[in-house]
C-alpha cells in the first residue's frame, strides 16, 4: 500500500448552508515515514459560465467562455514541511462557510452552460523526486430554507385549438385537462398534479414529463438563452384510460436542479413540458414555466 490522502467530512450528505461549519479531517495513510514540503487545504467555490455554440459558434464558445466567478476562496497551510509518521494520521479541520465580500453563495448546480460548484482540496507537496499528492472532493451548498411560499396552482386544458404552430389538419381531436398543484415548487418536494384524457381520437403511445433547464448567460454579445432537457419521466404508458385522472409526479434530481436563480449576468430557470406522444409518433407539448424555491 502506498501513501494515500483523503478528506473525510463529518456530514455524510456533504450539504452545507451559508454560515455552516465545514468540519472534517484529512486522513493520511502511509506504510512508512513520509517527508513532505507542506500540507495545504483550500476551499473553492465558483460559477462557471460557458457560452452556447448556438449563439457564438464553436470556436468562440471554446475560447470565449466567461471567466469563472469566484464565490468562496480559502487557503490554509495545515502543516509546514516535515514528516508524517507511518500508519494512519488524521488531521481535523474546521472552516466556516462564508462568501467572499460582495458575493453571495449560490446553490450547487450542475448544468450544461452554467455550473456552480464547491470543492475542498487538500495538497501534499513533496520534493522533486516524488509526485505531489492531492485530493479534491465536492461539497454541496444549499440556500437556507425560505419561508413557506404559498402554492400557485394552475389549471390547464389542451385541445387542438389551444395548440400553437401546428397544422390543424393533421391533429386528431382530443382533449386533455388537468392541473398542477403549484408552479412554485420546493426543490426537495416532488412536482405534482394530475391530468385526465377526456377523449382522444387517436390512441396515445406515451405521456411524459420533461424537465427542462433554461440557462441564460450574459456576455458581451448579449444574452444567450438555452433550454436543455434534464430528465424525462414517463407518466402514461400506452393508450391510457380516458376519464381517469393520471397523477403527475416527478422528483427533482439533485445537483441538476437548484432554486431558480436570477443574477445580473446569468439566470437559471426551469420549465416542465407535458409531452403526449400519439401512436403515429406525432407529439404535442405543453410548456409550464416553474419557479423552484427551497423551503
Amino acid at each position, binding site marked *: 500500500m502506498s501513501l494515500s490522502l483523503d478528506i473525510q467530512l463529518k456530514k455524510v450528505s456533504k450539504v452545507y448552508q451559508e454560515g455552516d461549519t465545514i468540519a472534517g479531517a484529512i486522513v493520511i495513510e502511509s506504510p512508512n515515514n513520509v517527508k513532505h514540503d507542506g500540507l495545504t487545504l483550500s476551499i473553492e467555490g465558483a460559477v462557471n459560465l460557458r457560452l452556447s455554440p448556438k449563439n457564438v459558434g464553436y470556436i468562440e464558445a471554446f475560447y470565449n467562455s466567461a471567466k469563472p466567478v469566484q464565490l468562496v476562496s480559502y487557503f490554509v497551510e495545515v502543516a509546514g514541511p516535515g514528516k508524517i509518521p507511518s500508519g494512519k494520521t488524521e488531521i481535523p479541520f474546521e472552516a466556516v462557510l462564508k462568501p467572499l465580500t460582495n458575493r453571495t453563495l449560490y446553490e450547487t448546480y450542475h448544468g450544461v452552460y452554467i455550473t456552480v460548484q464547491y470543492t475542498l482540496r487538500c495538497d501534499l507537496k513533496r520534493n522533486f523526486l516524488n509526485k505531489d499528492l492531492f485530493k479534491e472532493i465536492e461539497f454541496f451548498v444549499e440556500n437556507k430554507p425560505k419561508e413557506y411560499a404559498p402554492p400557485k396552482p394552475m389549471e390547464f386544458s389542451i385541445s387542438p385549438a389551444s395548440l400553437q404552430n401546428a397544422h390543424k389538419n393533421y391533429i386528431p381531436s382530443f382533449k386533455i385537462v388537468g392541473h398542477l398543484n403549484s408552479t412554485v415548487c420546493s426543490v426537495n418536494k416532488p412536482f405534482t398534479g394530475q391530468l385526465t384524457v377526456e377523449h382522444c381520437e387517436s*390512441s396515445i403511445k406515451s405521456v411524459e414529463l420533461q424537465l427542462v433547464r433554461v440557462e441564460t448567460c450574459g456576455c458581451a454579445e448579449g444574452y444567450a438563452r438555452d433550454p436543455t432537457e434534464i430528465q424525462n419521466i414517463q407518466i402514461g404508458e400506452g393508450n391510457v384510460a380516458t376519464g381517469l385522472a*393520471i397523477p403527475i409526479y416527478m422528483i427533482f434530481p439533485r445537483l441538476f436542479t437548484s432554486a431558480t436563480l436570477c443574477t445580473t449576468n446569468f439566470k437559471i430557470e426551469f420549465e416542465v413540458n407535458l409531452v403526449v406522444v400519439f*401512436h403515429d409518433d406525432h407529439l404535442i407539448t405543453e410548456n409550464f414555466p416553474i419557479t423552484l424555491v427551497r423551503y
Partner: protein
Amino acid sequence: MSSKQSGPSYKWVCRIHDVYKDKHSLPSQTTSDHPLKSAIIERKLSHTPSAKVTNNVSDSTTIVEPLGVSLDGSDPLSSFAKLTYDPLSKIAADECVDELDEDSNEPGEVEGMEPWSVRRREILRRFTTSEKLTMVTFLLGGEKVTVKTPTSQIKNRLEQLDDFEEDSEYREADLTQKEYMARIELMHEDLLTAWQQDQKVTALKIIIQCLKLLVDTSVIQFYPSKFVLISDILDTFGELVYERLHSKSKCIVPGRDFGKPLPPKFTPDMVPESAKETCRNWFYKIASIRELVPRLYVEAALLKSYSFIKQNEQGPALLRLCRMVRGIGDPLVAAYTRCYLCRVASSLNCASQNFLKENICDFIASYNQLFNKIVRLDLAHQRVPVPEYLMLFPPAVDWMFQGYVFNASDKILDEVLAQCKVKINNSLCFVYSGLLINAMLATFRSSYIAKHALQFFELISACSDEGFPQYLLLKQFGVCLNQCEPENSAEILSDVWLKVAQIKDSQNYLCVAEVWAEFISKHFASEEINSFLGDVVDHLMGKKECKENYDYLQSILKIILTHASDFYSLFSMNNLIPYLDLFKSDSTKVSLCKMILVEFSHRKNLILNDLVVINSFMFICRVLHDSVNALSIEDEKRQISNLLSCFIQRVDMGKKFEEQLSFYVNARAAFTNLDLVQTSLVQCVIRLACETHLIMKGNHSSRTASFVKACIAYCFITIPSISLEAFGVLTQLKLYLLTGQVALLNQCLGQADACLKAALSLVPKFPTSFIIDNVSKSSEPFLISYFCDFLSTLLVVPDNAEQEVLFLTRELIKTLRKYPWENELSRSYLYLYALDMLSTCVQVSYPYHVKNVDSNDVYYGSHSKFIKEVNWICSVILEEILAVLKAFAQPDKLRLQHELAAALLHRMVVRADLRDESVLTLCVNLIGLIKKTRSAASPNTYAISRIQDYLKWKTRKLPEISSENVYHLLSVKLKEAIKS
C-alpha cells in the same frame, strides 16, 4: 381295519359312569370385584397429567397389568398423545417453518387466504405457450458482467454506464418458452453476480431491463408466467437492497465504536446518517428511471427500505404508486402491476383499506380499457380469442380482490358489488362483465354470495360466451354455493340448470355439472339427483367419448355418493344405470362400480330390501364380477369378492324369507366365478335357516320345514362349486360340517347325513400344505381340529336305521386311517379322540343334545348290543394304536413312543372300564413301557403327573373299595415306574 375273525389282541371296554356321581364342582368363592378392574382404573389414573404417574404403579398392591408395569404406567400410544404434537404434525410444522424461511418476504398473509406461493405455482403451470418469444435486452447472454477491479468508484460507475451504451439494445427473436425462461433466470443470476461484485448500477440496469419485458405483451398467453418470473427477480432485488442498507446501518450506541445490528423493529432515528444517505440515493436514482412501468415496480420493490429514512412512509407511497398505475394503458400490464402492489403491501403489512379500495376502484374504473381499440387489434394480430384473453386476468384480479374483501364486512362487499354492477350495466361492458363477476365469486365470502345468490345469478346469466366463458362463472358460482347454502336453493338450481343445460361443449358442461352435483346431492332429494343424472345422460348420449369426460363423470358420481343423504334411493333412480352405461370402456366402468360399492360398504347401517335397488346393485355387481377373468390378480379378485359379499350380506328382506332365498339363488347364478362370494352366500343361507329355526323356536311347520330343507339343499349344491384350490377344500369341509350341523338343528337328518358324508369323501383331497404369506405350512393342524369338531358333532347325530351302527363314525375312522399323515403321531392322536367320542357314545345320557333330535343315547337306550358293537370298534382302534406304538420301538422314536403310551394310558384310565382284566393288563403293560422309555421323555411333560393326580383323586373318592382299588394299584405302579 383288521378283519373280524382274527379279533383284537387287546380289548377295549368302555366305562359307563354315573354322571351325577362323577360330577364334581371346582372350588369357588363369591367376589365383589372384577379381578381386572383395578388394572383398568390404574390405566386411567396414569393418564392424568400429574407427576404421580410413576407412583401409581409402585404403590398399587392389587394386580398390576404386566404390560402396564413394563411401560411405566403409560402405553406407547398414549405417551405419544401426551406430546403436544404427534410426530407427523410435528414434521409438518417443521416443514411449515422451512417454507416460512423460504418465503420470508411474505409474512403478512392472513390465515385462510390463498398464499402467493400457491398462486405462483398455479400461474406457472397454467400459462404456457408454444409461440416464439422475442426478448429485447442489452445483455449478450450474461457474459457482460465481468469482474473489474474497482479503481475508483465513480470511474467504475461511469465505465459501467459506458458499457451499456455501447451495445445498447440487443434483440433476440425466436426463443421458445423454455429458452425465454432460461434467459430470465440468467438475468436473475447476473443480478446476483453484479450485486456481489458491488456493481450496484449494473444490478439496477438489469432490473430495469427485466421490467421492460413486462411492458411487452406480445405472446400474451405467456404474460402471467412472465410476470411471476420477473417479479421473483424483483423480490430478490428489493431484498438485496434492504439487506445491504440494513447491514450498513448498525445501530448507533453512544460511547461505542461498533454499533450492533438494528433491532427487528427500528425507527429511522436509529439509522445512521450514512445509511440514510445511501437509501435516499437509491430513491433519487429510481425516481429518475424514464419508463413508467419499471419505475413503478422498482419503487414497489424498494418500498420496504423506506423504513430507513422515514417512518410510516410506506402507506402513502403505496397509495401514490397505486395511482400511478392509472397511467398504464394496457389493461393486462396494469392488472398485474396492481397485483404486485398488493403483494408488496401484504408482505409489508402496510396494506391500508384505502389503498386496497382505491386499487380496486381504479381497476373497475379503467375496466373499459379491456376492450379498447388497441387491445382488440393486438388480440386480432396475435390471434387470441377474447375469452382466452380474459382468462389471463383472474390470477391478478382475484388476488387484488382477495386482499380487499377477505374478511371484509358486508358493507364493503355491498360497495364493491354496487360498483361492479354499475360497470356491468354500462352497455359497453355488458359482454365483458364476466371477469368482474368471476373475481367477486372467487373472492367474496360464500355466505355473502349465498345471501345474494339471485342477484349474482342475474349477473351471470346476462353474460355471454363472447367474453369471459359463462360456464366458468356457473362453476365458480356452484363452488361458492356448495360452501354455504342459499335460502332459495330450489329456485336457484332450476334457474342455473336452465343455463347449464344450454352448454354445448360436453367438457365444459361436465366441468360445471361436477360442481353442481355436490350442490344437488347435498340439498336435494333423489328426485332431483335423478333428473340431474338424466340430464347428464341426455347430454352425453351419442357424443364422442374421451378420457377427460370419464374423469368428470366418475368424479360426479363420487360426489353424489359421498354427499347424498339418502344413499339408498340413489339406486332406485331410473337414470343410474343409463349413466353407468355412458362408460363405454370396461375398465372405467369397473372402477366406477367398485367405487360405488366401496362407498356403499362404508355406510355401515344401510340395509337393502327394495327389489329395484337390489336389482341396480346386482347390475353393478355383475359388472364387477364379469370383469374378473383368468388374468385378474389375486388381490383384485379378493377385493371384488369382499365388495360383493358386503352387498350380499346387506340384503335383508325382513320376514320375506323365501324372497331372500330366491335372491341368494340369483346371486349364486350371477357370481359363479368368485369362491369367496359363493362361500358367503352359503353362510347367508345357513344363517337364513338358523333364523327360521329361531322364529319357529325349533318346532317347524311343514312349510318352514320344507323351506329349511330348500336352504340346506341350496348349500349342499353350492358348496361343491367352490374351487378346490388353496383353501378351497378346507372351506368346503367347514361349510359341509356347518350345513350338517344346521340340518341337524332343523331336524333334517337325511340332509345332515348327506353333508357329513360329503365332507368325509372330500377329506382325501385335502392338501398336505397351505401357502400362507408365501411360506408353506403343514395343513395337518387344520385337519386335526376339523376332525375333532366333526367327532363332537357326530356324537349327537343319530344313526340312520338303514345303515350299520355308527356308520358315519366308522366312515370317519376309515377316512383318517387312509389319509396320508405326515406326522406319525397325528393319526394316533385322532384315534385317541375317536376313542373319547366312542366312550361317550355308550353313556346313558350324552353331555349335550340338539333340541328335538333324539341322539343315539335315546335311540339305542344303552342296549348291550350297541355297547358291544362300540366296544368292538374301540378295540379295533386300540389295536391300530398299539401297532403304531410297536412301530415306534426304535431308538430314535422312543420319545414318541413314550408320549403316545402316556396319552393312551390317560385315555384308558379315564375312559375304559378298568375292571376288565384285559384293559387292566394293558394299562400295566403301558406303565411298563412308560418306565422303559422314561429316559427319552422330554422333561417338561406333565402327562404322567396328570394321570397320577387323576388316579389319586379316584382312589380318594372310592375309599370303601380301596384295598382292591384298581386306581390305587395303578397309582402305586406308576409311582414306582417314575421313581426308579
